[in-house]
């Protein structure tokens, strides 16, 4: 970096003097002190972009229990380190303030959300599944055995993991719930 007083070190002046504006002349004490966020990360996880189905590789940097950066994975033969605007913005997907982190409950005819403990919500949902299944159980249809319930349906899956879809299909099917669908139908 250039020596001298602050004026002579001022990048604008050095660029005007003809030094390379994209190289040394653009540097200042402040920019020299800047370090990439990824350098300070406690850990980095190898992941995959959650938006479209190209499957670009992502590197997820974490510091102090927070995601600090998500970048393209240069090792990926699919994406070679590149991400599109959505993939590049995906740190915001996991950190934006609009993200919900609490269970909410709306009682029948209610006008507002209420808070609910996660364990309580899980128990209430399990109760409803068991009750609805029993109340809507269909043993036969037109004399043919069907052993199912049309009272319970599910939607979603294309944004989820294979392992998750597997448990969903397995549980729904064992329950006799056949109206199981996802975005692939759309």
């Amino acid at each position, binding site marked *: 970096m250039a020596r001298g007083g602050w004026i002579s070190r001022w990048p604008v002046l050095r660029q005007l003097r003809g030094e390379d504006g994209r190289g040394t002349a653009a540097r200042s004490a402040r920019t020299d002190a800047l370090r990439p966020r990824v350098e300070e990360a406690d850990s980095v996880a190898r992941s995959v972009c959650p938006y479209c189905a190209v499957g670009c590789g992502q590197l997820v940097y974490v510091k102090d229990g927070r995601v600090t950066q998500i970048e393209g994975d240069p090792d990926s033969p699919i994406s070679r380190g590149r991400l599109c605007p959505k993939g590049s913005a995906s740190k915001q997907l996991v950190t934006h303030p609009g993200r919900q982190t609490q269970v909410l409950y*709306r009682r029948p005819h209610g006008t507002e959300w209420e808070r609910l403990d996660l364990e309580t919500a899980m128990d209430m949902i399990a109760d409803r599944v068991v009750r609805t299944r029993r109340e809507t159980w269909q043993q036969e249809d037109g004399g043919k055995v069907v052993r199912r319930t049309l009272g319970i349906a599910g939607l979603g899956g294309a944004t989820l993991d294979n392992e998750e879809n597997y448990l969903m299909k*397995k549980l729904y099917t064992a329950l006799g719930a056949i109206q199981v669908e996802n975005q692939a139908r759309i």
Partner: protein
Amino acid sequence: MNSDCIVIQGSNMAECHPVGFQWVVEARARGAKVFHIDPRFTRTSALADRYLPIRAGSDIVLLGALINHVLTNELDFREYVLAYTNASTIVSERFKDTEELDGLFSGFDPETRKYDPSSWSYEGAAEEAAAGLRGEQLEGGPRHAEAAGPDQYGAGGAAAPVRPPTDPTLRHPRCVYRILRRHFARYTPELVEELCGISPEGLAELAEAITVNSGRERTTAWAYAVGWTQHTVGAQYIRTASILQLLLGNMGRPGGGILALRGHASIQGSTDIPTLFNILPGYLPMPHAYLHEGLADYLAQAGADTGFWGRKRSYMVSLLKAWWGEAATEENDFCFDHLPRLTGDHSHYTTVLRQIDGTVKGYFVVGENPAVGSSGGKTQRLGLANLDWLVVRDLTLVETATFWKDGPELATGEMRTEDIATEVFFLPAASHVEKEGTFTNTQRLLQWRHKALDPPGDCRSELSFYYHLGKRIRARLGDDEIDRPIRELTWDYPEHGEHAEPSAEAVLREINGTGPDGRALSAYTELRADGSTRCGCWIYCGVYADEVNQAARRRPGREQSWVAPEWGWAWPANRRTLYNRASADPEGRPWSERKAYVWWDADKGEWTGYDEPDFERNKPPDYVPPEGALAEEALAGTDPFIMQADGKGWLFAPAGLADGPLPAHYEPHESPLRNPLYSRQANPARRIYHSPDTPYNPPESPLFPYVLTTYRLTEHHTAGSMSRPLAYLAELQPELFCEVSPLLAAELGLVNGGWATIVTTRTAIEARVLVTERVTPLRLGGRTVHQIGLPYHWGWGSGGLVTGDVVNDLLPIVLDPNVYIQEGKAMTCDLRPGRRPTGRALLDLIREYRHD
């Protein structure tokens, strides 16, 4: 990357799959010719050699004309076509074409509006029973037409004779090749100009490019997305491309193929391991009450006994063993009767109508937002409002969770919050970095994501939610017979961490399958039909080979061949290009050095090459199957399409489709034009719903003179809940807009940046006007047809930083009869300057359009 010509049609790849598009750009830099065919000029068009504007809904006419060109001028890759397709196969004399029956194929029942496909069969199929093919496999009769969607055939397609009569000279009037020639004869350049709006010169340039760039030395690829699938003839769009690509010899070869550009991170995976009503993992059909009495009966009707689908018993028994473990025995049909039975269409839109009629009481919506993302949004919300209980799991408060509080029907007075009895549970979900597991990308590649950190607060993965829900349900069961399938279900996975998260690797290992010794299996050919193996999804068998998570492999691309076989794991058996036996000639030699990919090494007696051979490794090219052989042994050494009953690429589909063995052009359900080919205006077998809340715009209606199409933007994702709340993305694309041509803007007095109201019989929405020459008015049959484009990412909630009207509310609910996908890419609408009315006035406006 290896293509010499790339045609992108029904996709805006540069904007919707930008990082995948880098390979198109590289191919073009290397000299490949790139075409873009789309209603709108986009960044994809800007980077193509040639852009051809097309009317939405007319693609079969264009592709049909290309087929006609290839056949008329005998430009097909004859050696490939004769050896690898059913071009020479002779079809039953009972078959009648649309050209004979004015738009219908033989077998149509006007009352049920369904086809009995038995007359489409190969010659002599009816006599095949003596040769080992059972009568019930021949896919005939009204009972079949009523009960079986094409989904009932499984991955192998329908059963067909393995060695039907053929005429290799292609002169027999009923051989497939001659049938194709007659069928497509009316798909002429003049028809293309009249229906698509593409000039004969544009068509000739395209036809020249794809034929010059196909054959031994060169290959052409087609790429499509939902611009092809979301039509009442969507499956037939892809069939048309398949016929063309088979005739040109571009299937199973490097730089060839038909590439589906899918839109969600694991939409391929959620089809392979389906959260879909009609299939089980690995494309095994769900059992049907009226077709299947027991396991043997089910297997007898679940598709072919020849080809690799012939091993279906081992796939199915291994799945049942994975689910019901020790309880599944030979004596009890491996718990086959634990599976619930279908009785018809239980798809998404039918289910929503069952919510409205009160059949469905409880609904789980996980990572999807139908209140904004599905066609006819009002119907969706009416369904939600009529449930007893609703569980929504997502990252944000999506509109599906909040419809009772802030849905559009509250503003119009059609709903009141206090009247809605639905009990709603919102459970926050873990994001993709807060859980581990695999996505399957659009190339069938499974990639494992490592977890970066724990999810915050109450957020949990779906894996955790469904596992713990299952445990709770099991704890609540008694010894009732109806509870046996859940009681006996294998539901025990290792848990870890303070939230008792189940192990995703243990689930993946169950999907992969285990052998009699309890060790992970290596390949689906190891699966047994006697109950000694377990496998949760046969096509994924091998993803955990050698007890190693193969999907987690990350050998850098630069350290591997261009095929990169050690990055992730592709199904089946880590094969990166399907049917790659076709990349070699019948003798097993590469068609050319330039296009060498997989070939027969006679010295070693095995197939080898850059990819895993999609073929039995040691089956020589001169293998001739013995009489009566089953499964893969029934296929010859020259049969590359190993999942098909006869190992051939089907130019003509003797069964397996709900709307005909060949594609025919029908107008969209809502179209401003009359179909000049047939008196059948639209696909006669399309699925129509008679719901008062989602009426249809009449065809050729002067009230709805414009063609409407919908699409995505780079900066947003589907219904917007994963993009509208992100500041970067919301700022880049803040507002809903409609794209209109300068000519239409002048006609209607629309101002760029001003407002317009778009109207259908469903509703009216408002959008900013974007006047642009990217939308070209088309001259069709002497009249000008305007197209209007709408991106569909906006809504009123989801924690969005930007809001906008719901485009999908405009759309009709009318479906392709094969796959039950809605027609979302070609509708009609009206367009008016100014903002839409609000409150009751909006309903009054729609009423005018419904009654006039």
